[in-house]
């Protein structure tokens, strides 16, 4: 039933000798006892339930923009309490440092004057948002919502792959996946002491509301609209928070105050959760052709009449090129060593690194600095000769546009799928995106769970949903053992 031919050096379930790790004993026993037929049945009812709920996303490359369910893999990913403690501490540390960093570069720029990061790296970035300089967000907080991507390397160590400080999405799947699990395998769930995830909308609401001095502030979520791939999540979060789901055309700014147009006239908005890229939010300040934002929004923000979450201009901090400097940022602002290491990163902007990149392209993942969602990257080991020479050409033409990282052997996890007509559990690469929120007091709270994404294609290292990825329910266990022995 378990096929480990594609397993990475570090597999989450099986150790190097091929034995089941103690953490997973109960889960594996449960899966084996159900046999393939039973599991197939569970999988079908899970898929049907997701389809009926409309838990779907839209694929851009598809001409009709068809809706698909985000594949749910029913074998859960388990994280024990000790491991989680480290992850949680690492994320809190990272988000705290990033908030200090963003507040600094949009004010005194001490870190640049102390020459810890080359000024050109920040000020020359097209993600540096001049409109934010000197602007004082409440509490100095820029990153209210984050979803930092982690991977486990060949030794099983958790490492940061990417910081998502703008519009991290996927948290609705964390909550929905748990709902599906509790429906299709309640016994298994009950035999583990799993920390809940359904409180996320409340965590988010409380964090957002803390930015307004009012007792009951009006919180709204700005969506680009129904055709956005993450629309399901926008509606889900708005509904679960009891917040208003607004589009740009529902709002207007008058006298630097943001209002929404309601059937009873105008209603003031105090906190706006942006699920729209910075460049689209205000045609008077950013892209003038944007119909999705609100003219005057930045003025209202600058006047302190509304809080925007996440703050515009965060892109400069989760830029793939800046990533190489993040350990220095943590040391500089917090005086601590990073709890979670980063993957070694070569910058196209540095001549030595560039030479290395061009020579060792087969061993590297080349990523454009300004793209996300797994678009436009090259995995050297899996690329054709033409692709490699094409990327060499691009690297030489626009070196600052690219970074490179050694190909990471992402850990694998058994996933239920059909391979060559045989259904069973096959080892597939996974990563982990835990979600964190930060209130006006700067306290970072991490949701005890996360989105485990699976690269369902055989051998693939790209887990993005847009590239054929799926997801797993992620069970973070309470201390004192995972399994309750009946």
């Amino acid at each position: 039933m378990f096929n480990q031919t594609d397993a990475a050096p570090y597999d989450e379930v099986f150790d190097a000798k091929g034995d089941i790790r103690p953490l997973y004993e109960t889960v594996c026993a449960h899966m084996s006892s159900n046999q393939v037929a039973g599991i197939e049945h569970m999988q079908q009812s899970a898929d049907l339930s997701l389809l009926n709920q409309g838990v779907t996303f839209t694929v851009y490359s598809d001409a009709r923009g068809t809706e698909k369910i985000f594949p749910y893999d029913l074998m859960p990913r388990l994280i024990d309490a000790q491991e989680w403690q480290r992850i949680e501490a690492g994320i809190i540390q990272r988000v705290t440092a990033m908030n200090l960093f963003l507040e600094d570069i949009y004010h005194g720029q001490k870190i640049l004057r102390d020459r810890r990061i080359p000024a050109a790296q920040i000020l020359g970035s097209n993600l540096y948002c001049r409109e934010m300089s000197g602007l004082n967000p409440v509490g100095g907080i820029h990153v209210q919502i984050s979803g930092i991507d982690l991977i486990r390397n060949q030794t099983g160590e958790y490492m940061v792959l990417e910081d998502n400080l703008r519009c991290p999405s996927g948290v609705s799947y964390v909550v929905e996946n748990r709902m599906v699990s509790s429906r299709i395998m309640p016994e298994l769930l009950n035999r583990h002491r799993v920390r809940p995830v359904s409180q996320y909308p409340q965590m988010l609401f409380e964090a957002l509301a803390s930015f307004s001095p009012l007792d009951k502030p009006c919180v709204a979520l700005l969506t680009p609209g129904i055709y956005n791939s993450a629309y399901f999540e926008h509606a889900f979060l708005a509904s679960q928070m009891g917040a208003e789901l607004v589009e740009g055309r529902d709002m207007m700014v008058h006298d630097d105050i943001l209002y929404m147009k309601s059937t009873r006239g105008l209603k003031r908005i105090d906190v706006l959760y942006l699920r729209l890229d910075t460049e689209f939010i205000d045609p008077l300040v950013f892209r003038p052709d944007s119909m999705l934002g609100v003219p005057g929004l930045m003025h209202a923000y600058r006047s302190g009449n509304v809080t925007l979450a996440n703050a515009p201009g965060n892109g400069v901090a989760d830029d793939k090129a800046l990533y190489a400097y993040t350990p220095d940022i943590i040391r500089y602002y917090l005086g601590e060593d990073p709890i979670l290491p980063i993957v070694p990163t070569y910058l196209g902007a540095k001549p030595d690194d560039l030479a290395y990149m061009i020579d060792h392209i087969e061993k590297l993942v080349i990523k454009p600095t300004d793209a996300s969602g797994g678009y436009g990257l090259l995995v050297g080991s899996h690329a054709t000769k033409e692709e490699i020479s094409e990327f060499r050409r691009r690297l030489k033409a626009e070196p600052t546009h690219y970074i490179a990282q050694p190909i990471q052997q992402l850990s694998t996890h058994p996933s239920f799928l059909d391979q060559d007509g045989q259904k069973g559990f096959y080892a597939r690469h996974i990563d982990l995106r835990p979600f964190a929120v930060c209130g006006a007091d700067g306290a970072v709270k991490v949701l005890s769970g996360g989105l485990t994404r699976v690269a369902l294609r055989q051998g693939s290292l790209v887990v993005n949903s847009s590239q054929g990825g799926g997801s797993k329910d992620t069970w973070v266990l309470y201390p004192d053992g995972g399994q309750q022995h009946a």
Partner: protein
Amino acid sequence: MLSRTAQTLYQLGFLIERTENIARILGVNSRMSVEQQVFSDLDVWSPVLEITHNREHFETNFGEVNEGNVVRLLLIDSHNPYSVRACVLQAREIARSVRELISEELWLHINLFYHDMEKEFASNQLHDWMAFIEKVHIFANAFHGLAHNTMVRGDAWQFMRLGYALERGRMTQRILQIKYHLLLPATADIGSPLDLHQWQALLRSVSGYEAYRRLYQARIEPSRVIKLLMLNPSFPRSLHYCIHEVFQALRAIGMSNEEQFTVYRFTEVFLDDLRGGAASEEIIAMGIQKYLSEEVSERCGKLDTMIRAGFFDSVTVNLTDDQAHLLRVQIPQQQQMRTHFSSRGASHETF
């Protein structure tokens, strides 16, 4: 409530009602066509095209008026805005955009039906369309039941109610009007088996046959049918009942500007006419055909326009200028229709 979402909910109520009405009309007509051999001169399908505003679209795309073509047009043709498929597609699309405002159960219900329907239409053929029509009936009525039992009686509910009540009233009016327009028998035919047959079908298409029998027992008389469908205050598909629903919904929503007050007053007067006998006098004075086509149709149309103007299309804002004068400003809602492309590329949600 946001003006945009209020409009969406209004539209949702309207679409569900229209879906049901199309199925209803089709079902009744097919029953009539079974007896067609007896009344060979009866063209049962043309009136259907009239009621559903489909004459033109039909003639350019289908040609011959026969059962198969009409059924395809009204059930499967997604390019025809008056088809069940188009209505359900659109209802589901917009329900998704307000899913945080309707109950979870209601959303599931719509989405499930949508998936079932698409599966059924996958081949673009429908083998047992009568069975499908039955499903549409159950779908629409379960929708109302679910909405009734699971939704808070807030603005969301009221706007949805406004949408379906007005559409239901208009449909009843149209069905009656078509009967007069197309099926008007020669004087000699009045009271003939054919005439009775038509009146029966008409009553059935608004679920009014049993109601009629219970109220009037006797044989079907046109004047009584009109009374039932227009003026009866307790028959749930009568114009009177529907306008009463509209009125109730408006009252619950409340008024916060001049236009909204005007809509409310307009509805109140309309309702008074239906209630107080002014309408029945008018029917006699104008003749039923004129009454339906001018009075009722115009009033309903105006009501729809006024609701849109008062609640959706603009917002009246009170502002104070430098001299402390109170200004009333109309801020138009932007009615931009956006393509998939403009909004979907705008958020590089990292995922």
